[in-house]
Structure formats: C-alpha cells, structure tokens
C-alpha cells in the first residue's frame, strides 16, 4: 500500500497520464458550461437569441426582489420540512435494518435501493395515479368513510353524507409528500451506515446501567449517529432544494419551487441571463450549506482532541 503510494508520488508522469483524461472531461463538460452560465448572469438580452455580457448586476438585483426571494425562501422551507420528515421517518427504518437478522438485512437494503433503479418520472406518475381523484388513496379513504357511516347506522345514528374525494394532488401537501418519497432512501442509507458502525455493546452498556430504551436512543444512539444524521440531512436537503420534476408535476400553481422558476426563465421567458443569476444564487446557497456542514464537522473533530 505505502509502496504503491510512494510510486505514484515519485513517478508523476504516468500518474498524470491516467488522471488527465477524466480531469479534461470534467473541465470540458462541467466547468466550461458552468462558467458560460456564470458569465450570462452578468449579461443582458439584446435580441431573441443574442446575449451581451455587459457586466451588469441587474439580474442579481431582480433575483433578490421579494417576488423571487419569497419563492427562494419557500423552497428552502419546503426542503427543510422534507428533510425533517425524512429524518423522522428514516431513522426508525435505518434502526430496523441495522438490528435485522443477517438473513433479512440485504433484502431490506434492496427494498430501500429499488426505487433508485426506477425512472423518477415513472415513479412520480405512479404516485400521482395513486393519489388522484379516483386513485386508490381516495378509494381507501372512501371505503373507510362508508364503513364509519355504516357503523353509525348500526348504533342508530344518522348516516354520514356521501363521500367526496379529497384533493390530494396539485398542492403543497403533494409536493412535500412526493419529495419525501423521492428522498427517503438518501436519508436512510447514511443513517444505516452510521448505525451499523455503532458498537452494539454501547447500547447494552446503557441498558446495563439502568437506562430505558428511549433514554438509550436519545442519549447514546442519536448522538453517536450524529455524523450519519449530518450526512443524511445534507444529501437530502440539497437535492430537495433544487427539486424540479416533483413540484412541476405534483404541485399546484402556488407550489412552484425555485427550480421551476429557473426553468421558466430558460424556456418560456427566454431570459437566459436572469435564469443564470437565479441558478447561481441557488448554487451559492448550496455552497453555504456545505461550508456550514464542513465547518461543523471540523469543529467537532477539534473538540474531540
């Protein structure tokens, strides 16, 4: 191992030959286009298909107007809510996988991974069919309603009025539900990896010292799964913040998120410079989140020594 590493340090040229191709790829297809978009954010439209880079900050000024800032903040709020729900739902799931028997664990992990191998669009449409006016969710609720109505007649009460399907789609509720559904695996996997690494005798030691299961969970398991929680939060929050498809398909007119606004600038509004400015504000926000996270991580490490 050490020998191999030393060889790489001593023989820089073959090493460079190996890594230059992927680096070239990243520069050409990631950094260059991003750079172009970044430049556009300082330009203005001079014709239907012509942009002039004038160095103006007008796009950023417009992007920070309340109209857009409010959508920004709302996206952040939705992403935070989605992350929180994923954490609350995902933690017990991760615990269940960790404490499952050797025989069951791979199957449970497979069940978590399975959605990854299915196209997001298909998954979203499937969820929409479930939640539609005539979907199974409404049918199930209707059946329960009818059942309750029947029970009332049994005890001599007036039956309930006829079931009217609930509007489950095209609102903020649908967006949050859809995003939780999409992002849950992102939360469960880092949590599982952190819990799996946890020395199980720590849990037994806590019980042995008289703690109940709930106290053991809150005082031992959750604090020691901290790195997994932080990783799960970041890996859920960032994509949720930039979510496009779910709010577009499942949201109503008032549940647009920032990615939908950006899309509109590039397509229908044909205002690339403004779209670019919005995009970069989103990217900066994500950078800030990542920076905050790594700062927290390094401080935790300093505190430990």
């Amino acid at each position, binding site marked *: 191992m050490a020998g191999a590493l030393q060889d790489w340090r001593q023989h820089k040229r073959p090493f460079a030959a190996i890594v230059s191709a992927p680096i070239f790829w990243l520069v050409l297809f990631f950094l260059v286009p991003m750079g172009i978009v970044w430049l556009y954010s300082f330009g203005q439209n001079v014709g239907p298909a012509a942009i002039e880079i004038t160095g103006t900050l007008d796009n950023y000024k417009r992007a920070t107007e309340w109209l857009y800032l409010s959508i920004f903040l709302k996206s952040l709020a939705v992403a935070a809510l989605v992350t929180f729900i994923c954490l609350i739902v995902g933690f017990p799931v991760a615990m269940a996988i960790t404490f499952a028997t050797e025989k069951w664990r791979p199957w449970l992990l497979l069940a978590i991974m399975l959605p990854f191998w299915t196209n997001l669009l298909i998954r979203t449409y499937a969820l929409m069919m479930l939640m539609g006016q005539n979907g199974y969710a409404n049918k199930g609720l209707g059946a329960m309603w009818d059942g309750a109505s029947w029970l009332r007649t049994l005890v001599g009460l007036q039956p309930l009025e006829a079931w009217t399907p609930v509007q489950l789609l095209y609102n903020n509720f649908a967006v949050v539900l859809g995003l939780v559904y999409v992002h849950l695996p992102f939360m469960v996997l880092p949590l599982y990896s952190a819990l799996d690494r946890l020395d199980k005798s720590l849990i*037994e030691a*806590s019980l*042995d*010292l*008289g703690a109940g299961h709930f106290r053991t969970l809150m005082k031992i398991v959750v604090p020691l799964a901290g790195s997994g929680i932080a990783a799960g939060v970041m890996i859920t929050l960032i994509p949720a913040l930039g979510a496009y498809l779910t709010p577009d398909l499942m949201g109503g007119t008032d549940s647009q998120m920032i990615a939908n606004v950006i899309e509109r600038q590039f397509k229908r509004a044909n205002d690339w410079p403004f779209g670019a400015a919005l995009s970069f504000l989103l990217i900066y926000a994500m950078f800030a989140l990542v920076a905050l996270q790594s700062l927290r991580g390094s401080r935790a490490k300093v505190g430990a020594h």
Partner: protein
Amino acid sequence: MAEPIIQIRNVSKRYPGSPVAAVDDVSLDIMPGEFFVLLGPSGCGKTTLLRMIAGFEIPTSGTILIDGQDMAAVPPNKRPVNMVFQSYAVFPHMSVEQNVGYGLKIAGVRGDEASARVREALELVKLDGLGSRKPDQLSGGQRQRVALARSLVMRPKVLLLDEPLSALDAKLRAQMQFELSDLQDQVGITFITVTHDQDEALSMAGRIAVMNKGEVAQLASPSDLYEFPANRFVADFVGSVNLFEGKLTLDEPDRAAIDCPGLGKVYLGHGVTGPHGADVWVALRPEKIYLHVPGKGDAIRAAAKDAPEDHNLARGTIKGMSYLGDITLYEIKLDSGAMIRVSRPNLSRHDQEDFTWDDRVSMHWRADSPVVLLS
C-alpha cells in the same frame, strides 16, 4: 452457610437453527463476595451464561435467581448487576465523569452525592484527576478503568466482567490481575469473570468453573483444578499435561498401578476406585517429571522407595528443546515411541546446557504426581 447471591438452576440456551445447545443444563451457586471465574475455550458457552445473568440473553429453560429473586421477567436495566464489556463500551461522546455518572443520573442520584460518588469511584480505579478527559484521550487500560468505575459506582450486588483483560498487553494484564483482586477485596462485591486465559483464571479466582461444550466440566479452586483435574478436558485445558492411555492393574485403598503402553508402569500412593482392568488415562504435568542422565534417575528413584522397582521411570531421547528463561522445555521421544514433555527450572545460570538434542535421558516422578482420569 450464607445464601448464594446467584443461583443458576438447570439453565440451557439454544439458539434457533443451531443443533447444539450453547449452554446445556448448567447449575451453579455463586456465593456473596466471591471472585468466580468462568473459564473455557471460545464457544464453550461461558459468555452466553454471563449474558444470561446480565439479562441480555434469555435462557431457553431453567431459572436464574439473583439474591433469591427470580430474574426471568426482569430486564437488564432493572437487574442488581452491572457488566464490564469486553470492548469496554465506554461512551465516546461523554467525558470520563459523564460516563461514570451516567448510571447515577438515571438512578436519581444528583448533586453533591452524585459528584462525591463519581470522585470516589475514580479514586478506587486510580483515575482521579482524569475526570474531564474524553475516552479517545485515554489508553486502553485507562478506558477499562473507566468501565470498571462506571459499574462499581452503581454498587451492584454482582459485577460481571467479560474477558476484562483480553485487550491489554501482557505486562499490563499481569498488573491488572492483581489490581482486580485487590479491588474485589476492597469493595467486597461478588465478581464473575469470563476468560479463556487459564493464567488469568488461576491467579484471580476463588473458584473456577471450567466450561466445555455448554457444560461445566469441573468446578473447583484454582489449585484443585490444576493438581486434581476431573477429566482429560480440564487436565489438558488448564496448564500443560502429558496424557497416556493405560489399564488399571492394581487398585487398593492406599495404592494403585497402571500399565501404560506409552509411558510404562505407573504407581500411585493412593487408590483410584475404578474397576480392575479398566481403561484409564494417566495425566502427568511436565514440571513434575525429573530429568537425569541415564542411570542416575533409576538410582534416585530406587532410593526414594515410594514405588516398586521398574515403576515411575522412563527413558528416551531429547528431540526438541526450547529455552524460556526461567525454565527449559524438553520434547522427549520415549523408547516406546510416545512423546513426552518435561520442563526443568533453570536454578543456576548454566542449567540449560546440561542436556541437548539427541541426548539419552532418564526420567522419574513421585508416586503422588500422576493423576488417574476415568473420562
């Protein structure tokens, strides 16, 4: 006689899907204030038994009573026992003080009393002054002391220790053996220790239960275990031993003789109470065999007059030698073709030069040295 603090009655543990029982119908009484050791090879069920006392495993059948109370329905966090885990299980996100105070806080002990008891426990394990450290700033030995203090501060009726010294280096382990014995004397709490290390067991225990395949093979004091093993498993597991098959040719109240094809004629100064002509095994410890140049052994043997002529004598050729400093170990091929191991103390500086490879030697042993085993 005092009431046992722990009564284990016909306890068995079977894991689903396993054809053999991890613990098979074990009954033990452990007395208050005792230093009790469960000794055995890995997989013998000793740790399972300890974890059943702690409440982390539920017996398939049988009962465990602690201080007269049936533990069947009592969860681990309600049992009057505490455990020191093999990995120590010191909470890494808490300081030493917080670790030691964890159980007290749950028990509702707060304020001055709690801090006084934490301080007292840390003094007991010689960690005073390190209370504010985090576990990753401690050595392995110190972390183990934290685990000890964390359990002792709860003043349990019984302290359970799972392989407490296995992760320490040899020097520290020897030191901790003494310290654990002292500590147990000081606090007067019953200690039950699980170990696979016979030296550890012999040096610390008041009584030892040797376990094999889920059963107790022998329950005895350390010296009885070593000098009077009950069967071949115990003789072989505790210490080093030479085992020879033989037939009982003489069995009277004050003497017995066994004819071993491998070793020769063996004479004992006491009876065996086995059927005449029975197949038995003779166990002979390497340090109880005297090594001589040919001829000399016979003369000494004859002068001792503790056995008839031609008994308790053997001749052979040295085939292997290992010098261990305090003793030298010899592998000797007997004239019968069997191998025997003899250890010889190096009483003076050049003793190890007395014999070397391919030397012809004679051996003798005293009539009270061999142990006859029926199983």
